[in-house]
């Protein structure tokens, strides 16, 4: 009897130890919210649904793929080099809007109850892969943008303890 109780106790402890800090359901709800946030901006187009993952000891990482809608060539519409330059200029012009959306998503994610399991000192990361056609002139355009910050700092900004204009200083931005 003692053996059985000991085995049951160990199994229960093991199950508790393997339970994720953030459930898949909560993560998928947050993914949908991030998708909606990007989709709400007509200057952006979601090319791949947002995927979120929690890395224990690091934080929550959300990745997505977006593009800036532009005119595209077709067999009935020949595309000149001037058109390609126009496409590139349009994308360059809309990049600040994309970065702003990423900042908004970070604040939203940090404040979301879905990430309650993320520790305050852990990171909340938003990574965006920009989609380009093969024919595009991508000079000066980033392939990936990654913005991250500590969860507690993001919550401070969201709650108003830290002024919004200091958010930029708290963020770590990588573009390549």
């Amino acid at each position, binding site marked *: 009897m003692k053996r059985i109780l000991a085995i049951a106790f160990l199994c229960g402890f093991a199950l508790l130890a393997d339970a994720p800090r953030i459930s898949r359901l909560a993560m998928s709800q947050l993914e*949908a919210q991030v*998708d909606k946030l990007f989709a709400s901006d007509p200057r952006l*187009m979601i*090319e*791949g649904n947002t995927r979120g993952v929690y890395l224990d000891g690091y934080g929550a990482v959300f990745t997505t793929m977006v593009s800036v809608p532009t005119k*595209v060539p077709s067999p009935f519409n*020949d595309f000149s080099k001037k058109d390609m330059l126009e496409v590139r200029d349009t994308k360059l012009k809309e990049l600040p809007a994309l970065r702003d959306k990423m900042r908004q998503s970070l604040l939203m994610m940090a404040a979301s109850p879905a990430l309650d399991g993320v520790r305050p000192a852990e990171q909340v990361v938003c990574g965006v892969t920009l989609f380009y056609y*093969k*024919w595009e002139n991508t000079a000066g355009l980033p392939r990936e943008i990654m913005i991250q910050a500590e969860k507690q700092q993001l919550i401070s900004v969201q709650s108003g303890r830290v002024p919004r204009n200091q958010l930029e200083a708290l963020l770590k931005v990588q573009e390549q």
Partner: protein
Amino acid sequence: MSCAPFDLRDYYFEALPEEQRRAVEEHVVRCEECAGELERVRVTGMALATVPEEELPRRIGFVSDKVFEPSPVARWWQAFWMSGARMASASVALLAVAILVHAFYQPRRVEVTTGTPLVVAAAADPAAIQAAVDRAVAKAVNATEARYDVKLQQIVAENARQKMVIERAAETIDTMDRRSRVMMVASNRESGPVPGQ
């Protein structure tokens, strides 16, 4: 000669008034001769009735009119054709003229140019001619190859352009497909997955 009080032909053609008609009828009963005359008039009238009516000609021409008289030239021509001797004489004369013309007429001669360098060279040195021919052939072949190369380059360029257009279209279609899947995933997140997907 009829002894009837009125003309029997007028009676037959009903050209008499009623009293005169009655007088004629009474007379014919008594006079056998007038009865016979009236009978002949009737037969003649019936015969005339069987003849079909024809329209009168608008103009009546006579053989003596000038219209029917042939002109002097026409009369001579007709007489010529009708006379075997005249025809024979004319044929002989025509043949003689043809022989004379053939004898004295000389067609223009085709002048053959001589003394071109190539002919001289050919006459002089077959090797030089061969070299000239080789040069000419090489020149023609080079020109043809140059034209062919230009055409080939045009075809290659057009092919590359078409390929690029098709690749771009395929990429656009792939992107549309991906976007539709994104929308499907978003829809599933909103309302749960569609059965069968």
